[in-house]
């Protein structure tokens, strides 16, 4: 950082040597103060910082002779600098204020410097929802909602900006993580206690991480090997009989350069839960083992990480009493056995003499193997992925102009079989990207990105993107973004929940990549340091999209979009706190997602996307006693009405234009948690879905699962009622 400051300083001094005012900032013992801010009075945009030796050089501006100085822990000062001499300013320590400083941070914060609207969910916020994995980490977040895809499998999908999670790139530490076939249960594959923080970027993302961040990016930072937390043990139980254990170990080796982390997770649910007595398990029985080991090397010129990950999960849902298709052949069962093996490495070459320069290489290889049974219908899915990303970072002239450029490589080998439908694909996608960032202090940041992917199957994809951040006044920030993205859809992995039905699956044509444009922006007003209001609006339209059409009972169609598909989403969010231990958050979200359907009948009808509440309200209140001894937290969600399938007579000959619409009612969901902190131990008790609201008949025709009308994929609300959980976290630093 210091070197960066020098770099800025050097540029400034070289550019306008003669018209500069130079000087030194020191404290009362005459030690230099590095990093102090020096600017002309009333002109914060002129600010420069002092270097390691406390030296500064600032260009003269007309009609202003007062220089202001500020630095944390010191009293701000002003100096008349009219002459042509070397000024020395001795700053006085602000001792009284420092004594009172208590570090308080909010659970969610906006990344103030990022040109992309990025929300950071800290570990503090993640503790508010103690259970259990990434899919449950967004409970207190207004932008992302999470829902079950069906009443049987337990698969959960996120939704951001009114769009399905498949258009959101989910990465762990900037390595693409939940994609392709891994999407079905991917949200369940990242345990909550492994997560350090989550960044949610809204709107189209950076070209550096790829093409698939079409409407947003969720980047999960895992617990680091070199952080002070040496051991974390977490156990969790809930009233359904779900039990989890997590053990994280991190250690620095003696030479201080190497460190390692072992993250482990085991969980299971073995009880038969059928609260609505429809003969179907409300939650599948399951067991999961999940291990991640990584090693990190930090040297002056080289940073490197290597690691591996293993996951094994078995699920068995369906009718109560179901064991397997051979031992209980009369019962409808759902089974999924997934194994994942992953190896990854990250290497960065640093240039200590030019800290703005860097060369990084990310490599990842993943084998995903899953076997599912929907009743008597098998679905086998294999995906082998090789991913590489080489990034070079440097400046044009000075650090106001930085750029990243590089090469990416992606190879996906898909091998899928559903019933008698086979889908095989071998994608080889080399890519080139370039991203330029212009920064003017913290007022303006402009990001221009270009990416070109050379897809072996679908041709060339040119993806331009732009992000702008501009401070309009001291506390007003405007962000705008626009850009193109694409991905290749996977009908079975994404429509997984709809497969738990007697629907006959029809893929009408070769599915082409989905290509989108997303435009939008946000306006944030920080009234006070801890009171802010944020308004966002985004618009997405598709050049092509895979339409999953379940308008006709008994049929599930997949086809390419022909016509319009557009989504508008708006969010208004107010956050207040922490003030005297209180934190308050309120969010209102509106979405409108319309797609053109009707290809099976040769029609084009614009219809609202199903299972997407138009309005959603979130209220979150937290209170913590001094020293966080006790913490209370409550979250209320109001989910507005959403379009759901209408029961038509079975048949594929009904016109789309004549179809009527049916809507699910508004419902409320309440979660709450109380936790008690001890110096090394945290104990928590909480409840989910405390209003106990659940859908009355989540499984259609549950009594005849092999009959033509059976359908468990029409889920718009909770399947299970209230649940209470308890657990603890034990930490050694």
């Amino acid at each position, binding site marked *: 950082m210091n070197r960066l400051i020098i770099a800025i300083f050097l540029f400034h001094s070289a550019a306008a040597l003669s018209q500069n005012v130079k000087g030194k900032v020191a404290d009362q013992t005459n030690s230099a103060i590095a990093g102090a801010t020096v600017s002309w009075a009333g002109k914060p945009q002129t600010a420069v910082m002092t270097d390691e030796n406390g030296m500064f050089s600032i260009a003269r501006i007309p009609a202003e002779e007062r220089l202001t100085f500020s630095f944390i822990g010191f009293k701000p000062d002003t100096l008349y600098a009219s002459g042509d001499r070397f000024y020395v300013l001795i700053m006085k*320590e602000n*001792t009284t204020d*420092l004594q009172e400083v208590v*570090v308080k941070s909010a659970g969610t914060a906006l990344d103030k410097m990022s040109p992309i609207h990025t929300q950071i969910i800290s570990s503090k916020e993640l503790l508010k929802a103690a259970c259990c994995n990434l899919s449950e980490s967004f409970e207190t977040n207004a932008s992302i909602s999470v829902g079950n895809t069906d009443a049987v499998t337990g698969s959960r999908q996120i939704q951001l900006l009114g769009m399905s999670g498949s258009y959101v790139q989910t990465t762990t530490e900037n390595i693409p993580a939940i994609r392709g076939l891994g999407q079905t249960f991917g949200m369940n594959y990242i345990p909550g206690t492994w997560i350090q923080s989550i960044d949610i970027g809204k709107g189209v993302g950076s070209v550096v991480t790829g093409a698939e961040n079409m409407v947003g990016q969720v980047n999960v930072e895992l617990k680091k090997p070199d952080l002070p937390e040496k051991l974390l043990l977490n156990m969790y139980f809930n009233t359904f009989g779900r039990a989890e254990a997590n053990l994280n170990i991190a250690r620095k080796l003696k030479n201080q350069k190497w460190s390692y982390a072992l993250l482990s997770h085991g969980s299971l649910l073995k009880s038969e839960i059928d609260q609505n007595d429809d003969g179907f398990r409300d939650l599948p029985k399951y067991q999961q083992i999940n291990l991640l080991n990584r090693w990190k090397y930090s040297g002056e010129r080289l940073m490197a990480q290597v690691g591996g990950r293993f996951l094994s999960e078995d699920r068995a849902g369906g009718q109560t009493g179901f064991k397997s298709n051979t031992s209980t052949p009369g019962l409808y069962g759902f089974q999924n056995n997934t194994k994942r093996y992953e190896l990854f490495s990250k290497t960065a070459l640093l240039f200590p003499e030019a800290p703005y320069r860097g060369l990084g290489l990310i490599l990842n290889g993943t084998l995903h193997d899953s076997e599912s049974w929907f009743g008597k219908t098998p679905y086998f899915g294999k995906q082998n992925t090789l991913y590489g990303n080489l990034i070079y970072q440097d400046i044009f002239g000075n650090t106001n102009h930085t750029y990243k450029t590089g090469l990416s490589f992606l190879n996906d080998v898909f091998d899928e079989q559903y019933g008698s439908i086979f889908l095989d694909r071998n994608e080889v996608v080399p890519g080139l990207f370039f991203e330029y960032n212009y920064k003017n202090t913290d007022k303006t940041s402009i990001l221009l990105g270009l990416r070109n992917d050379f897809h072996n199957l679908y041709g060339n994809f040119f993806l331009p993107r732009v992000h702008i951040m501009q401070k309009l006044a001291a506390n007003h920030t405007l962000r705008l973004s626009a850009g193109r993205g694409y991905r290749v859809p996977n009908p079975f992995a994404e429509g997984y929940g709809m497969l738990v039905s007697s629907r006959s699956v029809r893929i009408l044509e070769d599915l082409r990549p989905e290509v989108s444009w997303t435009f939008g922006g946000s306006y944030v007003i920080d009234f006070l340091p801890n009171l802010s209001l944020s308004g966002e609006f985004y618009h997405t339209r598709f050049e092509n999209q895979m339409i999953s059409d379940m308008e006709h009972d008994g049929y599930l169609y997949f086809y390419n979009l022909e016509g319009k598909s557009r989504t508008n989403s708006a969010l208004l969010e107010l956050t207040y706190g922490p003030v005297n231990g209180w934190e308050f958050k309120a969010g209102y979200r509106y979405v409108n997602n319309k797609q053109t359907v009707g290809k099976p009948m040769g029609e084009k009808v614009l219809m609202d996307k199903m299972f997407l509440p138009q309005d959603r309200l979130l209220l979150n209140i937290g209170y913590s006693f001094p*020293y*966080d001894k006790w913490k209370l937290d*409550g979250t209320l969600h109001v989910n507005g009405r959403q379009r759901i399938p209408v029961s038509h007579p079975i048949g594929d000959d009904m016109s789309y234009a004549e179809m009527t619409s049916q809507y699910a009612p508004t419902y409320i969901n309440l979660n*709450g948690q109380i936790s008690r902190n001890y*110096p090394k131990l945290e104990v928590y008790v909480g409840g989910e879905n405390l209003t106990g609201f659940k859908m009355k008949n989540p499984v259609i025709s549950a009594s005849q699962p092999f009959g033509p009308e059976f359908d468990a994929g029409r889920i718009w609300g909770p399947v299970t009622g209230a649940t209470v959980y308890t657990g603890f976290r034990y930490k050694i630093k």
Partner: protein
Amino acid sequence: MKKVIGVLTLVLALTLGASAQKHKTDEVSFASSVKCGMCKKTVESNLGKEKGVQAVNVDLKDHTINVVYNPKKVSKDELKDKISKIGYDADEVVADQKAHDALPGCCQKTAKAHKD
């Protein structure tokens, strides 16, 4: 909706109930080896979570730890013991060596006097 109100009332009652719990409290001040802002943070956040402790203030000028506590739940000697286990002296009770060694460099007794 009734259930929502019920739960909200419960949460509110818990909050108020907890803050209304003002028993008789005692105040005590221990001379200690605290040195800087980092030490202040460590002692306050750790001791503050202990049973019976209601407020902790580390005074870096006087090198004291001031504690407001409920004598029914915790004794003076237990407090000294707890401070020692965090890694700091409390009057005549010397810091637990293992805990002290685990403190950051600036909080070690060998560190030069400094403010932050």
